[in-house]
């Protein structure tokens, strides 16, 4: 591919039209102090193949699964993607990020997203799911905004400090612009959210928990639902690992009003953190307050089944500034990928995969405990867990890295109060050899 800059002659011609003597004059309104004055540190021109090699070598500095065994978790999970999913998703008919609004030319994609909504609603135990959000973090922010809309005059939300730190940052970015109050709830000694102070919060529209939470701990959702509803607030349940609901009671069954989270686990590669998929569901009662697009099933004039956008009056192209959200185009391809992934595994497959994740994680957890590690929280976990070490685990970590294993994320970077504690994650892709190696290195 060639890059053709303007010639001096062309530039001169254009300047004569705009009435400027020099190219620089076009930038004269930008204050000097805002402009970079030195020479840019860019090398001399090189060939395309040399450039490709250069960037390839930079890329190889990354430590990615499956080249390395990554046992980190924290919102991004290494799950196997069956070939059928990748194959289907590489079909050009599906390649768009948008949810199409022209039913006459988009039946395939619309049906695919309708299936995604159906599968999502079933997995989360909710009545309605939308056509997707950007990612787990923005989905949580939108869920809280939705709860504030439903709560009308209420303008405070409480979020658990055991929610993913990045999600909490995004929530604050979204909500502070509208001058809503965000209160953080403490984590108790069991690694669960302390809900004891809810009664003292005025104008509480919603309480958000994550389960399993950032420490991998499974929150007691049913008890939480009772306490949150007693304080007249909506219960927003979020998640970063939807596989957990293959095994655990769904948030819907546990009494959540809005459920949202990250769908990366369902067929999306980790890809340096994105793109993700925001899964979003609620009870039917609140469907008109949902953000984003919704696909509905209908019939055409001849009585044939068809799919269309529905309840669009919530959206910005109709309702302008009163819309439930500014999101319109979204993660259409990622939602279709998740639909293909969930359908490939089926209900039984998701359950079996969840058990495999749980069993492997328990194997490593128990092995490390026997090797001398301590539980940071003595509570049930799914495929992530936190341990603290009396010895210096960072040295073990370096030795493992040399063996191609990236194990344990230092918790203190997000929670300074938990020193020498690490978050581990084990998915189905971790081999027994890998897990045994980690245990052996801790024993050293």
């Amino acid at each position, binding site marked *: 591919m060639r890059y053709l800059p303007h010639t001096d002659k062309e530039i001169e011609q254009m300047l004569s039209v705009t009435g400027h003597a020099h190219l620089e004059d076009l930038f004269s309104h930008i204050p000097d102090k805002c402009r970079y004055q030195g020479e840019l540190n860019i090398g001399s021109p090189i060939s395309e193949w040399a450039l490709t090699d250069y960037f390839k070598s930079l890329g190889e500095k990354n430590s990615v699964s499956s080249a390395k065994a990554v046992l980190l978790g924290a919102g991004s999970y290494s799950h196997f993607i069956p070939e059928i999913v990748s194959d289907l998703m590489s079909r050009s008919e599906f390649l768009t990020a948008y949810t199409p609004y022209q039913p006459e030319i988009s039946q395939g994609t619309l049906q695919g997203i309708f299936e995604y909504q159906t599968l999502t609603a079933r997995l989360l135990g909710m009545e309605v799911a939308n056509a997707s959000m950007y990612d787990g973090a923005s989905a949580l922010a939108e869920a809280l905004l939705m709860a504030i809309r439903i709560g*009308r005059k209420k303008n405070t939300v409480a979020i658990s400090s055991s929610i993913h730190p990045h999600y909490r940052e995004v929530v604050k970015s979204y909500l502070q612009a509208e001058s809503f109050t965000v209160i953080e709830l403490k984590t108790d000694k069991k690694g669960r959210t302390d809900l004891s102070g809810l009664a003292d919060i005025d104008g509480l529209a919603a309480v958000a928990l994550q389960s399993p939470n950032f420490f991998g701990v499974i929150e007691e959702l049913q008890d939480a639902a009772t306490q949150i509803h007693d304080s007249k607030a909506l219960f927003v349940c979020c998640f970063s690992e939807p596989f957990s609901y293959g095994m655990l009671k769904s948030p819907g069954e546990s009494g959540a009003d809005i459920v949202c989270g990250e769908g990366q686990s369902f067929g999306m590669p980790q890809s340096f953190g994105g793109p993700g998929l925001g899964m979003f569901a609620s009870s039917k009662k609140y469907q*008109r307050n949902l953000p984003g697009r919704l696909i509905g099933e209908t019939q055409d004039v001849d009585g044939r089944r068809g799919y269309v956008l529905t309840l669009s*009056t*919530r959206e910005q192209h*109709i*309702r302008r500034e*009163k819309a439930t959200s500014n999101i319109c185009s979204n993660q259409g391809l990622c939602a279709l990928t998740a639909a293909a992934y969930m359908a490939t595994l089926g209900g039984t497959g998701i359950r079996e995969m969840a058990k495999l994740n749980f069993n492997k994680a328990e194997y490593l957890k128990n092995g490390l405990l026997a090797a001398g590690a301590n539980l940071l929280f003595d509570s049930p976990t799914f495929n992530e867990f936190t341990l603290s070490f009396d010895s210096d685990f960072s040295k073990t970590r370096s030795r493992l890295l040399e063996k191609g294993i990236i194990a344990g994320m230092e918790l203190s970077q997000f929670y300074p109060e938990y020193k020498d504690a690490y978050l581990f994650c084990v998915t189905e892709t971790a081999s027994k050899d890998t897990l045994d190696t980690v245990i052996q290195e801790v024993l050293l």
Partner: protein
Amino acid sequence: MKELSELDLPENIFYSDDHEWVQKTGDTVRIGISDYAQDQMGDIVFVEMPEVGETFEKGDEFGTLESVKAVSEMFIPLGGEVVAVNEALDDAPELVNSAPYSNWLVEIRPSNDSEFDDLLNREQYLQLLQE
């Protein structure tokens, strides 16, 4: 769309600038939308109403009406406490189109009777529509 002469505008009720009607029923009032409003909106498919017990100041948004072509916010013509909402509209919002004056939206207990002075009678409302 109806011509002005075709509109049904009863004599015995008040109207607001926002095309609502207000009818006294003892110490409470019922609020609905005028024939003009329902005609302008087209087929109404959903009515979102406040909760009983909520209080509003005059001019507050108290709910929304959704038709096949638009969503309109409803602003309360009198401040007060909601004592009832017309639940029949949950399942049959189209009743607002077919009989806008018998299908009230909310019943409130007004907090300030002087606010009645700002409402319009039939003649005044008709004049507003003519302008």
